């Protein structure tokens, strides 16, 4: 077990900056996920932690020990790659025992450890097989057993489930979480899959263009996005670009008033946003209610024409044209039928506390770690 600290690490390839000034503290036994789109620098960050890529600037510490320029073999890490990367010419048992054999452990000790690891990942009796004789999911479990066999200080996962089908992915992600909890290893997990990140993480680091956009728990990231990128990348959302025209009320009752394309909107208060600032106010589709007969009073009510209704099983997406801008509301199956029949214009309502303003002009606010 170990703590991991990244201190302003940067990686440049020529004039391209792949990772830009990333700092992160990971507690002992914590599972932190680096989440972001392709090319955002999450894998490069992970490879720098592993020692496979040398940072251009910054320091990396494991338990206060500076490991920035240590080779991977001296860091005592366990790296699970996107592909299982099992050595095809070695048996499953030899793959799992590889890390111990290169450290010249005794053969009986290696054998015992291999059996223990096989049992841990639910593959007891598979030791004599070659990797090609296993399914994709089994191979990834062997890869996990292989890294755990060396008792690493830190576990690193580079999109380990991306090559698997959806069912297997769902099954294995909880398997990984379970193993990480049982072994209490500090872990960094890289993925672009939000559901994977939300399912297994203690904390999530959202990255974009080589920088950290926000660090927080699932609820922090989803309910309190701090940058337009986080709001738009995590889940579906509707954004209103506008200007803060005033602040209404005080304390917990305070609200921001925002004008966007002629719409007067009341938003959740953010003391750091000044009157006159340019903001984007976001509301999630599931927080939007369809007002059929003038029902219920909402803080914000907008009107538009139904563009299309997309059936998605338990819910349906209603795409509404509001002054040339597409707006999405997620409704239940019953409402969908009503809407599908009615067509025409529709009124939508949402509470001011569900409308989150994010300052566009100021620097991105990042949670202190």
């Amino acid at each position, binding site marked *: 077990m170990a703590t991991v600290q990244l201190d302003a690490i940067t990686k440049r390839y020529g004039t391209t900056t792949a990772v830009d000034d990333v700092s992160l503290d990971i507690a002992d036994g914590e599972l932190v996920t680096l989440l972001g789109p392709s090319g955002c620098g999450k894998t490069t960050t992970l490879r720098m932690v592993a020692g496979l890529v040398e940072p251009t600037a910054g320091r990396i510490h494991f338990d206060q020990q500076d490991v920035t320029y240590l080779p991977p*073999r001296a860091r005592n890490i366990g*790296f699970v790659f996107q592909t299982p*990367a099992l*050595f*095809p010419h070695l048996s499953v048992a030899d793959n799992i025992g*590889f*890390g111990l054999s*290169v*450290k010249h452990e005794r053969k009986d000790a290696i054998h015992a450890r291999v059996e223990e690891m096989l049992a841990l990942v639910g593959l007891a009796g598979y030791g004599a097989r070659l990797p090609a004789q296993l399914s994709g999911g089994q191979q990834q479990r062997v890869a996990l057993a292989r890294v755990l066999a*060396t008792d690493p200080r830190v576990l690193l996962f580079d999109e380990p489930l991306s090559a698997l089908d959806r069912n297997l992915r769902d099954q294995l992600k909880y398997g990984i979480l379970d193993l990480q909890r049982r072994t209490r290893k500090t872990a960094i997990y890289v993925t672009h899959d939000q559901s994977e990140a939300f399912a297994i993480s203690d904390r999530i680091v959202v990255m974009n263009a080589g920088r950290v956009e926000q660090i927080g728990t699932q609820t922090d990231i989803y309910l309190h996005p701090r940058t337009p990128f986080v709001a738009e990348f995590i889940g579906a959302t509707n954004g209103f670009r506008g200007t803060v025209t005033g602040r209404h009320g005080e304390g917990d009752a305070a609200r921001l008033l925002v004008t966007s394309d002629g719409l007067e909107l009341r938003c959740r208060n953010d003391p750091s946003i000044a009157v006159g600032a340019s903001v984007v106010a976001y509301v999630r589709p599931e927080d939007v209610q369809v007002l059929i007969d003038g029902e219920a009073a909402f803080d914000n009510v907008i009107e538009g024409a139904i563009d299309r209704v997309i059936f998605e099983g338990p819910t349906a997406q209603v795409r509404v044209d509001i002054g040339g801008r597409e707006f999405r509301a997620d409704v239940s199956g019953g409402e969908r039928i009503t809407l599908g029949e009615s067509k025409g214009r529709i009124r939508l309502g949402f509470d001011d506390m569900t409308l989150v303003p994010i300052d566009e002009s100021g620097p991105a606010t990042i949670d202190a770690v």
Partner: protein
Amino acid sequence: MSEASVPVHADVAARTKPRPAPRPRRFTPRRVTAILSHAYIWFCLAVFVLPFFALLAQSLGSRGGSAGIANFGDALGSFGDNLFWSFKITGAVLVLDLVVCLPAAYAIVRYPVPGKRLLFSLLQLPLYVPGAVIGLSLLFTYTFAYRIESTLGLILALAVGSFPLMLTPLVVAMKDLPIVFEEAAVCLGATGWQTYRKIVFPLIGPGVSAGLLLCFIIVFNEYLVTLFVHPPSLETAPLRVFNLVRTNGLAPTTAALAVVMQGISFIAVLAFFRIFGTRHLKGTYIL
């Protein structure tokens, strides 16, 4: 079954009775193409294999019949030394080629060498240059610094001429080997040497075996470079064949030695295919 229903069923049966399949045409375009393809393959085979049978016939020649087999006894007896030298020299060249080319292939593929393509093309040069030119250039270049007409000189000269045949399959095999295996090994605590010995070398086995086969066949049968740089006391089997043909024409015992050499090369290729299969020739452009 009622009588009334009979005509109905008979009618259905008449309607559904399958027509006899039309007789296939004997010479469809596809069939003609297949016949021509086979004929072409057999023609090529005859062109390449006939000289071998002609040589075999010559080797069984003047004594005639079963007594012609004695030519092979003579060949193995009086030319035994030459064959032995050929094996020794070839073995040494293969080891030297492998020792030089394994790290070279690794460096070419895994490290950002400036002008890598140009460098790789230059390294292929011995393949495009006639053996006589290689022999002459080696003599001109190194004879002042080292007595190249020696056993070691011959081994080095043959290695210079044959190493691209080892390097190319190794480079292809290294390129085909995903780097993730090496990364996985070092992350598990392996040193660079352990990674190479336990992971890289076994996984580039196809390239190694293909390189060994190609080098063996070329070096074992090489006489032109040997002609320039061999020491007076050393005569390899192909050089002996060349010298004998030049002085005495193709005598049956000389032909027998040539047949033995062809047989050895043929057995090497057969053994290779038997042990490794054709997939191990992936990336080689010679075979």
